[in-house]
């Protein structure tokens, strides 16, 4: 089915993309959720098979430098998605100051009227306020909330969240355990960079450089604060070389460990475990990269639907270009170190 969107050429919706993914839809319809830093990325993500995209709205999302939409672009994106039977989620995942909450609530109400599917939030207080005042809007507890276990999922379920995001290093059996007790949708960031410090639990940048508010944004943002910056300026503290001093003497020079996680080759295990939403990190990624990643996950998810299981060792979908480790982790990333 081809549709023409104002400002764009004809789009071909993927015949294999999940349709109608929403609250209450069975798990076999796992939604493929793509990042989009601009309209072109959203278009290509939909074309590659994404069921939904998540975007930032200028001034209200973490990582603004990675791409935020203005209101006009966001409206166009929602229209584009609706024309294709797809969805748009809004990452409003900074923690708004008390005096900002009403302004953001009004904006969310308007966006919900436009047909926004869901909003991604980071603060438990604001999350509950949105649930009470905008009952028709789906809410996702951001990965920045730091949820890791069944209790976390139940907590956000209690608050009225529709979905909660877990990091992609959580194992399928952990997800199955969460699904056994919680009815909230489980969204897993299966393609992401795992940094040394857990998402939502890092204050290293602001300890070292708490920059003044960035100019040109409608509300004062605090550069250096991952939670409140909203301008993508965490200064990549963890990706710079550090000297490790032992008793005052330099013992080593090193980076904080990090790695690129890509679970496409093992996607079936996550879908078997009951993952409801496959999330891809990266609103800073260019369109061609997002498109390539989404095609891999779309194909793997559709293989799973057909009952075909990929061999992680031979599957070409385990593309080295998007699966390469940024840093080698020689020992004990998980079990013993945990």
């Amino acid at each position, binding site marked *: 089915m081809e549709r023409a969107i104002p400002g764009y050429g004809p789009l071909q919706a993927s015949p294999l993309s999940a349709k109608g993914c929403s609250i209450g839809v069975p798990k076999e319809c796992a939604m493929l959720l793509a990042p989009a830093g601009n309209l072109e990325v959203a278009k290509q993500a939909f074309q590659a098979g994404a069921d939904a995209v998540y975007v930032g709205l200028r001034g209200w999302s973490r990582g603004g430098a990675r791409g935020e939409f203005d209101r006009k672009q966001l409206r166009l994106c929602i229209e584009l998605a609706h024309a294709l039977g797809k969805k748009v989620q809004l990452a409003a995942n900074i*923690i708004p*100051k*008390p005096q900002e909450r009403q302004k953001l609530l009004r904006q969310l109400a308007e966006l919900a009227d436009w047909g926004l599917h869901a909003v991604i939030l980071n*603060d*438990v*207080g*604001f999350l*509950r*306020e949105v649930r009470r005042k905008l009952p028709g809007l789906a809410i996702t507890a951001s990965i920045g*909330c*730091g*949820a*890791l*276990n*069944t*209790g*976390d*999922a*139940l*907590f956000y379920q*209690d*608050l009225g969240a529709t979905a909660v995001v877990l990091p992609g*290093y*959580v194992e399928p059996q*952990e997800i199955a*355990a969460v699904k056994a007790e919680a009815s909230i949708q489980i969204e897993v960031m299966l393609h992401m960079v795992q940094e*040394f*410090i*857990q998402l*939502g*639990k*890092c*204050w*290293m940048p*602001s*300890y*070292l450089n*708490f920059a003044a508010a960035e100019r040109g944004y409608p509300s004062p943002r605090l550069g*250096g*604060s991952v*939670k409140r910056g909203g301008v993508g300026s965490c200064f990549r503290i963890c990706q*710079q*070389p*550090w*000297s*490790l*001093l*032992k*008793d*005052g003497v330099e*013992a*080593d020079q*090193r980076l*904080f*460990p990090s790695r690129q996680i890509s679970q496409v080759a093992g996607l079936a295990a996550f879908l078997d475990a009951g993952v409801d939403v496959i999330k891809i990190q990266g609103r800073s990624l260019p369109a061609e990269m997002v498109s390539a990643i989404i095609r891999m996950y779309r194909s793997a998810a559709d293989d799973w639907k057909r009952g075909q299981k990929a061999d992680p060792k031979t599957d070409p979908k385990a593309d080295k270009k998007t699966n390469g480790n940024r840093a080698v*982790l020689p020992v*004990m*990333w998980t079990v013993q*170190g*945990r």
Partner: protein
Amino acid sequence: MGPFELNTTISNLRNLRESDLSAYDAVYLGNIYCRIFEDNFLECLDDLKEGIARVKGQGLRAYVTSYAAPRNDVLPKVQKALETAAAAGADAVEVHNLGVLRMVHEQFPGMPAHVGGFANVYTDAGAEVLKEYGAVRFTPNYEISLDEVGAITSGVGMPAELVVHGKMPLGVSDYCFLLEYEQKWPEKCPTLCQKNLFLKQGDWAMRSVGKGVLSGKDVCMLEHLPALIAAGHNVFRIEAAYETPAYRLNIAQIYRAALEQAAAGGDGTVDESAWNTIREHTAIGLCNGFYFGRTGAEYVGKRMQSVVAC
């Protein structure tokens, strides 16, 4: 509770036995970062029981902390630690993870919950939600200013616990990179992370404790205590989980004297010998954290820079 509470953190029974706690009102027992920290109270439940008895036996309040970021496989152990805490008469538990807060609320309804700094309390709205889950006290996220803390305490009616001295937590990981050095260094886990380890880059420094990163400088609010008391704060923490018994004692004695003076209406003047003691216990220098809305590593105050930055 008297006019104020001064508390600290101790990770295991050995450290507890070695520490003179006479200047404290309460102690948090347990290490929040790592299950395999040397004889972590949260894993050694007989030790935890003895630790609670030992603290209470000194007339202090005994609190039990819990892991900053537990995954599902850790929750059963957390539950057992909570059961031990409740049975041994702990006065409160500290929770950093919202799933654990929910567990405490549902399974230990009579147990007061102190919300820890990793729970990300940034706003009054967030604190209000946690209060409904049984929180009676909160440590604000370390990034927020005293003005923001005041807005929460006045708006929600829940006291804040403020780190007034020590190394402020900056992050928690699922991975301990110090384990990579077991092959190279004579020290091994589980005592490796207790060594004097800092990460430095130019003027920047942070303390590595394996799965956690702490501020390199020591937060020091000594000269600001009268302002904290005047603002209505009365729960203060000396963050000393990775410090020596001498640090715990000497720093606490200074703060106890200063708090008593401030509570009596003093102007906050502190004897110079106290500053010298603080300097002796400071490896990198002093800072105020985020209390004044500035970069966490900065120091705002009257002290000479030579004293503040070692």
